[in-house]
């Protein structure tokens, strides 16, 4: 696989991971304990 594709995936995946988790957590905020 092309190294540039791996680089792009890596660059996109890092913020994406946090943003997805943040969206989920914000949607659950206040409905927890």
């Amino acid at each position: 696989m092309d190294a540039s594709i791996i680089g792009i995936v890596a660059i996109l995946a890092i913020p994406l991971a946090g943003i997805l988790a943040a969206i989920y957590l914000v949607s659950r905020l206040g409905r927890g304990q």
Partner: protein
Amino acid sequence: MEADMLVRDYLGRLEAAAWPLAADRRRELVAEVREHIESALAEAKERDEVTTRNVLERLGAPEEIVAAEVEGEPSARFAPPGQVSIERAPAWGFSEIAAIGLLTVGAVFLPIVGPLIGLVFVWASAQWTTPQKAVASVVVAGVLLLPILFLFGASVGAGPF
């Protein structure tokens, strides 16, 4: 008995109106209201139809109670007299802001480290349940693993065959 039927009907309407709430919270709300009705009737020392109707009217429509609950403002009006109603902690505290900030903006400025510190704040917060924290951790770990899997795929693809 007419009064009991009124209470049952009211609680049934409350339960039906409370469908947007989580099952646990719905049961809790119905129990709280039932308890309040019982204590109000005990205080009135009457359990006839008129007294029951008055008590239920003072409580308001079940839909209004649910609406207040959905807005995150548990109605204080059915707190028994002399008892302080339990107030919810505000949803956004330092841990929550730090967690969301590090998971989003932090991921750009502190790649990998930012979201990981953000997860520490998520676990430190009392606003999310353990399963919710676990889901967030799995999402972060899972998406962060993508590049590693791509790298693994690339190295396998670049093998001798």
